[in-house]
Structures are given as C-alpha cells and as structure tokens.
C-alpha cells in the first residue's frame, strides 16, 4: 500500500487502520476531516475537491516519508478524497502508529498540517445562498 493516496470515491478506513497495526506499536493517533455544514460563517451545501493527482501523490508521499524521519513513529498513512462530497462525508484521513502516544499525536498533527499547506488539492464550496467558490487561502 502506498503511504499516501488520492481516492476519487468514498473509502473505508478500517483496512487502512489495519495496515498500521503491529505488536511493536502501543499507540495509534488518527485524524479525519469531514465536510462541515459551514465555513467562515457561510452555510455550506456540499463541495468538490480537485487535485493535480500525480503531483499530489508525490507530495503526499514525501510528507509521510518525512514524518517517518522526523518523529519516533512506526507507520503512517494518509488518504484524501477528490470529487463531489456531501455534508458529513469523509474528506481526509491520517493514521499514525508509534511506540508511545506523544510522537503518534505530533506526527499525525504534522502530517495533516503539511497536507493542507503543500498538497495540490483545491476545495470548491457550494453555499446555501446559491453561490460557489474555489478556496485559495493565503499561505
């Protein structure tokens, strides 16, 4: 299994988590991003994620590999959805296993932060008022 993947369809977390299990790991931290019904005060109806897939997978893989160097962790993985998502849908998942909980939490947080800042994926939000927009936040 690749340590970072883009998924164009809804994906199941259980088998991804399973790959991180191991008798050498005592701690597992995970993060999930779900589609929320509002963003910065605007009511959201749904959204669309687009990626530059080849580069997103290269960059995401680089992030997870870097996490494995920077933190005392055992395994790590991340999957990001693209395409149409409804409220409550899973947008991104990060899982990290480690000997101890400190590095598991720190690496999990670091990976999602890096993914959000570096991986070429863009969110297009549709609002209840009928408008929609691409989100291009200031870095």
């Amino acid at each position, binding site marked *: 299994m690749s340590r970072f993947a883009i998924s164009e369809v809804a994906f199941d977390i259980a088998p991804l988590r399973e790959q991180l299990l191991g008798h050498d790991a005592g701690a597992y931290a995970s993060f999930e*991003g779900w589609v929320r019904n509002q963003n910065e005060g605007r009511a959201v109806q749904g959204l669309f*994620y*687009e*990626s*530059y897939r*080849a*580069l*997103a997978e*290269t*960059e995401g893989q680089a992030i997870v590999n870097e996490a494995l160097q920077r933190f005392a962790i055992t395994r790590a993985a991340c999957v*990001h959805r693209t395409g149409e998502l409804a409220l409550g849908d899973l*947008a*991104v998942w990060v899982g990290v296993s480690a000997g101890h909980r400190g590095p598991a939490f720190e690496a999990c947080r670091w990976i*999602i932060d890096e*993914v*959000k*800042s*570096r*991986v*070429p*994926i*863009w*969110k*297009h939000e549709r609002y209840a008022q009928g408008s929609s927009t*691409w*989100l*291009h*936040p*200031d*870095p």
Partner: protein
Amino acid sequence: MSVTVLYFASLRDAAGVDRERLPLPASLDALYAELSSRHGFSLPAAKLRVAVDGAFARWDSPLHDGCEIAFIPPVSGG
C-alpha cells in the same frame, strides 16, 4: 517547440480549459504574465507555485520542448 500548460481550480475556470498547448515560452514568469492577461487570471504569480513535469519547480527553472507546466494556486485540501 511547444509546452503543455495544465490549469486547476480557479485558473481552470478562468481559462475555460484544463490544458492547452503553447509555443515554448522564454520563462515561466513570462508565460504566466501572458496567460494572466489573456485569460484574466486574478491571482498574482507571487501567490502561486509552479510545477514542471510533475514536480514542484523554481520560477527560474529552464523549460524544454514538450514539458508539462502547471501553475499551482494556493491549495485548500484537508
């Protein structure tokens, strides 16, 4: 001698296409300046990253015949 330019997100919406083939430009800066004026891109180059052949690149990277260029607007995954 030509290059392929890929458009994503708001740049794709503004360009109206997701890619186009163009003559080999003098530089990435010059190319983005020309495309901004032609397609009415509102994002200044300073806010973008650029990729050449599927890897992030510097704005002064050399270009070659047949290369694939992508201008990367600020990302919003997660």
